[in-house]
């Protein structure tokens, strides 16, 4: 880390205001934020959704989605030059060459119709006078610098032919090609798997150090901050809450909001093991397999096969929570949908109290569905926008033959249980926040009085503080109602909070299976160890535990 305080800042933000369209919840997306970025440092802007952190990035790049959202006051100076007053042509010249940006979702940020080589070359063509051969050498070099294997091949590849991590590397190469002084990275690792995230964080740190670039790294995740930041700015509701050296903020936060955010970061210490009584088995999966085939038209043709789940065995006991952990494509969500029979398995059995759930006919399945219910990932897609919350929660009960008056009474009780106001029943889903919607989803699942709850990434779309609340709610309900739970997640830390038992999946197979405490203390499989090593900021998380 260069001693940031001695150099003069390359980017100065003074009392920045960004106003929002009239009639919204608040007048300003950003209200009076002042920040400096020095060369050779990584400044992390942390905040939850709606904190205005992404608006900061857009304001600096001159990419605010006007005409109603615009910088209404303050100053942004880049190497002394006022950016807010700069002409569009000047901004264009600066963007890419002096200030570059890395986006969250590389698949949408890259043009799908151009090869990686053409897209990076385009930056050089616009900003420099280099000839074709020189440009090509430069592009190959930079692809090598971001550790993409076989740069010559990547050059002529299209975005869809690369993996998510490779695409993000290509994006970073594109941002670096003109040696910008400032790089703004807006949640660059949020869409990536944890092992890929670790590599990309490593890469960003490496290129930043080699080039002494100033990096503004925007994230919602304090463990990523712990991994990468030199200095930290915490934002809430458009204002700066706290600003300081990373070590100070992470270990000695001053403001209550920062303290709350840090406290909400899930710990790596598994929850105490429940008394290891051999309780009766509620659900047993034996040899579950599913292969997806795609392609092949009316007359056959090229078919592609993906073995999503292969020969999975699983035993869930009463009151127990099994965490199914894996990265995207590991088959964990498919497994959940096989068990609950949203997808039909190719082979295998799912025994609910000894009866094979998968062999039941359509009518029998419908009557048995109440035993096993699901909480979904996306709180915005999992509730039908056309119906009121009361109807959504009561629907299952009415279908299973509960009289209307009873159902209404139970809806009220369920709303109490998940911590929502009883008046919520008369409102539509869009009037609620993500965390509240997730509570509605839980209430709907509980309405049928199930024995088993399947939670599919039920907290991964939520802000960290809300995530902690919903996790507590799930654990509380599980203990109170003595539910068994299948908890699907990509996040080992989250799994540690609620699960008695951990199952690690990779490419459709279980690679590790054991009590949470054992898996955390001594992971047996290489892949599990790799997952643990990829957890960002793990030394800080462990350190934080010891402080509490």
């Amino acid at each position, binding site marked *: 880390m260069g001693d940031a305080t001695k150099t003069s800042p390359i980017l100065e933000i003074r009392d920045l205001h960004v106003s929002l369209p009239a009639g919204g919840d608040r007048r300003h997306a950003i209200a009076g934020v002042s920040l400096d970025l020095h060369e050779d440092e990584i400044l992390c802007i942390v905040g939850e959704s709606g904190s205005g952190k992404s608006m900061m990035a857009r304001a600096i790049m001159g990419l605010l989605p006007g005409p109603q959202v615009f910088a209404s006051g303050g100053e942004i100076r880049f190497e002394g030059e006022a950016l807010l007053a700069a002409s569009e042509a000047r901004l264009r010249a600066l963007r890419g060459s002096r200030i570059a940006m890395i986006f969250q979702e590389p698949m949408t940020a890259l043009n799908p119709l151009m090869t990686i080589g053409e897209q990076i070359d385009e930056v050089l063509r616009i900003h420099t006078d280099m000839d074709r051969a020189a440009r090509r050498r430069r592009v190959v070099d930079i692809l090598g610098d971001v550790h993409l294997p076989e740069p010559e091949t990547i050059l002529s590849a299209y975005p869809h032919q690369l993996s998510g991590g490779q695409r993000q590397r290509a994006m970073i190469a594109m941002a670096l090609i003109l040696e910008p002084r400032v790089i703004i990275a807006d949640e660059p690792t949020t869409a990536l798997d944890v092992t890929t995230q670790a590599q990309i964080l490593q890469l960003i740190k490496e290129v930043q150090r080699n080039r002494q670039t100033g990096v503004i790294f925007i994230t919602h995740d304090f463990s990523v901050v712990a991994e990468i930041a030199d200095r930290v700015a915490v934002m809430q509701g458009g204002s700066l809450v706290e600003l300081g050296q990373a070590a100070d903020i992470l270990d000695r936060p001053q403001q209550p909001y920062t303290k709350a955010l840090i406290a909400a970061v899930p710990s790596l210490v598994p929850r105490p093991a429940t008394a290891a009584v051999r309780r009766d088995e509620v659900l047993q999966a034996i040899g579950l397999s599913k292969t997806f085939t795609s392609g092949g038209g*009316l007359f056959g043709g090229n078919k592609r096969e993906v073995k999503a789940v292969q020969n999975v065995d699983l035993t869930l006991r009463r009151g127990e929570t099994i965490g199914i952990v894996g990265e995207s494509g590991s088959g964990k969500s498919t497994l959940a*949908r096989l068990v*609950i029979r*949203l997808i039909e398995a190719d082979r295998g059995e799912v025994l609910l109290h000894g009866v094979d759930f998968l062999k039941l006919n359509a009518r029998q*399945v*419908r*009557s*048995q*569905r*109440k035993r*096993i*219910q*699901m909480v*979904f*990932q*996306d709180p915005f*897609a*999992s*509730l*039908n*926008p*056309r119906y009121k919350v009361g109807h959504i929660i009561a*629907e*299952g009960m009415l*279908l*299973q033959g509960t009289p209307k008056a009873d159902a209404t009474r139970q809806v009220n009780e369920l709303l109490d249980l998940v911590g929502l106001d009883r008046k919520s029943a008369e409102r539509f889903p869009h009037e609620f926040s993500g965390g509240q919607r997730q509570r509605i*989803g839980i209430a*709907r*699942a509980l309405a*049928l009085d199930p024995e088993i709850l399947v939670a599919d990434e039920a907290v991964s779309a939520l802000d960290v503080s809300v995530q902690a609340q919903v996790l507590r709610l799930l654990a509380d309900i599980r203990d109170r109602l003595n539910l068994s739970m299948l908890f699907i997640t990509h996040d080992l830390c989250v799994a540690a909070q609620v699960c008695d038992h951990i199952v690690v999946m990779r490419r459709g197979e279980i690679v590790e299976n054991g009590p949470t405490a054992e898996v955390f203390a001594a992971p047996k499989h290489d892949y599990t160890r790799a997952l643990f090593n990829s957890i960002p900021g793990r030394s800080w998380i462990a350190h934080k535990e010891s402080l509490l």
Partner: protein
Amino acid sequence: MTAFFARFLRNRSAAVGVLLLLGVLLLAILAPILFPGDPFRLAGPTMEPPSPDFLFGTDTLGRDVAAAIAHGAVTSLMIGFVASLVAVLCGTVLGAVAGYFGGRIDDLLMRITEIFQTIPSFIFAILLVAILSPSVQSVVIAIAVVSWPPVARLVRGEFLSMKSREFVQAARTLGMSDGRIIFMQILPNCLSPIIVAGSLMVATAILLESGLAFLGLGDPNVMSWGFMIGAGRSVLRSAWWVCTFPGIAILLTVLAINLVGEGLNDALNPRLRERSA
């Protein structure tokens, strides 16, 4: 709901469309009062130019063109709306079933849809009316039969994207039957594009009906704008009014329906809402 109407009527061209359409509707409703009796009745001298007695003149047989236009409005609107309704209902059900169940059912239904789409629709309609013999019912059937495939494809597309949404999966885990999921869960979320497509289809149906009547394939007992144009086309140079006024009637009605359809599209489609704001 009131917000929807406010948004709809703020769109000036949509408001003009509604006014025009209301005018045509009023004309159709008042036709028996304004022009009592059979519009085929010989009301005066032949090929009389427009005058206070005969507002739009008379045709080659001495029939009142104005009376024919008023009575023709009933035919056009009725056939347009009924045929579109039938087409939308059939297309929605087939598209919903194909999109929801997928697999072989989808393959089968979509191949059938494609067979219908490969036949030029107007020629197909002529063929159907010729086989069924011209009558109001056969014209409605013919128009509906050639109009449902686009609706089916539209609804199928909507269902394909909707059925993977989590609230649909949630409905299945609650033990909801497929029929209830299709009609109670997914369909209410697909209504906007269906309403827009249906409203625009009314205009096409009116054009189709006029075309059929022009060729003499309309119901011979019912007055129609297309029939008037067909009957007057041989005297276009000597008695321009016989063709011109029914033509303008068709133009205004189709224009009105298109404006209303576009307005509905803007008001119902949230992504375009900002454009008008």
